[in-house]
C-alpha cells in the first residue's frame, strides 16, 4: 500500500463512523423515534470512504437515496445529520428534508436525492461549473446499479463525455434495486461496460475492499483533475439490510447470499489488514471505536434534545431571496 498510515486510520475511522451511525439510526427508526424512510448504507462503507478520501472541501459530490455514508465520508457533521434525520430544526435542512435529502453545500455535498438517477444530470452541471471556472475541482456522483437503467444515466454520461468534464460516475452495484437483481435487467457482465458507449473509461472494482476502492478512485480523480475527462467506476458491494427500514414489501434476496456478503464485511476485512500490517493494534482499534461511538451518541443526543421546527416554518423558505 502506498497510502499513509494517517490516511489508513482516517479511512478506517470514517468507515466505522458510518457503520455505527447507521446502526444507531436503524435502531432509532425501529423504536419509532425517527419518522419516514431510512435507506441504510451498512455494507457499502468502503465505497464512499475510499472515493471521498481523494476529495477536498472544494470538490463536490452528489448522492442518492442511500446517502448517509456519502455525507459522512465527505465530512458532514454527524449532529446536524442526525438532527435532520429526526426532523429537527437544527438539522442540515431545518427538518424539511430528512434522511433522503441531506445536503451540505459548504463542504461540497450537493445533496441526496429521492428520485433514482436524478443526481447524475445535476452532477454534470456541477462538473461543468468547475470546468468553466478552470478550477481543478472534481465532481463525484454516487448512484446504484438500478439507476443505470434510467434515461438520465445515458444523457448524463454522454454530456460528460462530449464536454470532457471532470466527473466520476461512482456506481455502487449492490446487485439489487429493491428486489430486482441487476442481471435480470442488464444483459452485460458489468454495468461499467456501459461507459464504453460514451468513450468513457470504466472498470469494475471490489467495493468491499477500501484499498482497492482508494486506488481506483485515485486514478480517476487524478485523471479528472488533469483534464482527461470523466471516469466510470463500478463498485461491487452489497447492502446488508432491506432496501429501506421496515419496507412494506418483503426482502426477497437469498438468505445465504446475504450471509456470504456479511462474511466479506468491508470493515472487518480492512481492520484485519490493518492489524496484520501493524498499522493498528487492538487497543488503537478499541480507542477509535469508543471515540466513534461517543460521537454517534453525541449526535443522537443532539438530535433528541433539539427542538422540532415551528409548524409555521413549513410555509417559509420555498424561495430564496
Amino acid at each position: 500500500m502506498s497510502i499513509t498510515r494517517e490516511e489508513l486510520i482516517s479511512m478506517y475511522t470514517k468507515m466505522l463512523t458510518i457503520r455505527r451511525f447507521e446502526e444507531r439510526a436503524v435502531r432509532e427508526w425501529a423504536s419509532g423515534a425517527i419518522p419516514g424512510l431510512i435507506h441504510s448504507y451498512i455494507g457499502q462503507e468502503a465505497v464512499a470512504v475510499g472515493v471521498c478520501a481523494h476529495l477536498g472541501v472544494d470538490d463536490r459530490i452528489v448522492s442518492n437515496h442511500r446517502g448517509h455514508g456519502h455525507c459522512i465520508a465527505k465530512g458532514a457533521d454527524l449532529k446536524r445529520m442526525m438532527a435532520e434525520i429526526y426532523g429537527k430544526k437544527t438539522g442540515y435542512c431545518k427538518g424539511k428534508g430528512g434522511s433522503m435529502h441531506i445536503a451540505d453545500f459548504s463542504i461540497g455535498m450537493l445533496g441526496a436525492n429521492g428520485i433514482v438517477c436524478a443526481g447524475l444530470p445535476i452532477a454534470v452541471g456541477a462538473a461543468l461549473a468547475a470546468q468553466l471556472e478552470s478550477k481543478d475541482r472534481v465532481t463525484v456522483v454516487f448512484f446504484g446499479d438500478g439507476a443505470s437503467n434510467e434515461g438520465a444515466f445515458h444523457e448524463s454520461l454522454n454530456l460528460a463525455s462530449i464536454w470532457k468534464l471532470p466527473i466520476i460516475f461512482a456506481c455502487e452495484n449492490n446487485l439489487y434495486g429493491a428486489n430486482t437483481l441487476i442481471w435480470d435487467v442488464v444483459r452485460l457482465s458489468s454495468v461499467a461496460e456501459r461507459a464504453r458507449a460514451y468513450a468513457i473509461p470504466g472498470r469494475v472494482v471490489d467495493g468491499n475492499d477500501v484499498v482497492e476502492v482508494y486506488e481506483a478512485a485515485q486514478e480517476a480523480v487524478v485523471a479528472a483533475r488533469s483534464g482527461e475527462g470523466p471516469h466510470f467506476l463500478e463498485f461491487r458491494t452489497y447492502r446488508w439490510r432491506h432496501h429501506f427500514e421496515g419496507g412494506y414489501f418483503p426482502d426477497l434476496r437469498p438468505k445465504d447470499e446475504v450471509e456470504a456478503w456479511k462474511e466479506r464485511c468491508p470493515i472487518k476485512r480492512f481492520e484485519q489488514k490493518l492489524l496484520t500490517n501493524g498499522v493498528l493494534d487492538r487497543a488503537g482499534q478499541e480507542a477509535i471505536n469508543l471515540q466513534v461511538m461517543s460521537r454517534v451518541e453525541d449526535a443522537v443526543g443532539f438530535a433528541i434534545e433539539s427542538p422540532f421546527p415551528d409548524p409555521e416554518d413549513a410555509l417559509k423558505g420555498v424561495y430564496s431571496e
Partner: protein
Amino acid sequence: MREITYQQAVLEALREEFRRDEKTLYFGTNINYELRQEFGEARVRGTPISESGFVGAAVGLAGSGFRPVVDIGMATFGFVAMDQMVNQAAKITYMFGGQAKFPIVIRMTVGTGQFMAAQHSISPYPIYMNTPGLKIILPSTPRDVKGLLKTAIRDNNPVIYFEHRLLGDITGEVPEEEYTIPLGLAEVKRKGADVTVVALARMVHVALDAAAEMAKEDISLEVIDPRTLVPLDRAAIRASVAKTGRLVVVDEACATCGAAAEIISLVVEDEETYALLKSHPKRVCGPDIPIPFSPPLEQYVAPDREKLILALREVIKKSPQ
C-alpha cells in the same frame, strides 16, 4: 355486507379483470407478487427502473391490442415518464383520428402522512386534469376503488388511477358479487342541507368526520365525493350547491390551479347555480409549498378536520354556540 381493506379491494379488482380478459398485463419496478403467482411472469412483469420506457411500452402494447396496467409507485416518480403520458397516451387517440384505442391504466400513489418529504409526497392530479385525453380516478373507499378500477381496466382510454397512500389499510363494505362503477359519477357520501363539501380522496373521510362534528351543532353538511376527476360530475356538484347555497372544497393537493379551483369555477360560472349561492365559496387545500419532512411541519400543512370546520364556519357565518 363483508368488509375488506382498500388494498384487498384493489387486488380483487385486478384479479377479476385479469381473469376476465387475458389481454390484461401488469408491470412496474415493484411487482405485485400475489398477482404474479396467479397470472405468471409474462403477464405480471418486473421492469428495470425505466419509467419512460415502460410507460411508453404500455402505449405500444395498448395500440397493439393489449390492456396494460402500469404501476409507477409514487406519483413523484411519474415525472420521468411524463412525455409518454402527456404527449403520447393522452393525445394519440385524438391525433391519429381515432384509428386505434389505447386502454392503459396507470397507478400512482399520492398524499402526505408518512413523512417522506417533497420527492415522495405529492398529489399532482391537477397536472393531469390539465392534460386533455386522460381520464382520472381517485377513489376514497374500498367499494369505490374496486368498482372504479374494474371500469378503468375495461375503459378503452388511458386512465390514471391515483391512490392515496393512507387509504390502503382502511376497511369498508364491498359487495361479494360482481359490480362496476361508471366513471364520471359523483357520490353523495352524506346527505345534508347547509353546506356542500366536495372532498377528494382521504379528505372524504376528514369531511365525514367534520360532518359528524358539525351535526352536533345542527349544521348539516352534504359531503360529495367526485370519485373521478375526469370526467367530473359537474351536474351533481352544481345540484348540491344549488340546494345548499354554500360550497367548500377540501383537497390535500396544493391550491393553485388545483381541482378545488376547478370545482369552484364550474359552480360559480354556472349562472343558475351562482344565483343560488348564499355565501362565497371556499377552498381548504394544501399550501403552495413542497411537502416538508418533519412531522410537525407535514401535519401543519395537510388539511384536517379543524381547518375544514374553520372554513365551514366562515361560509356559514355561525360561530360555535
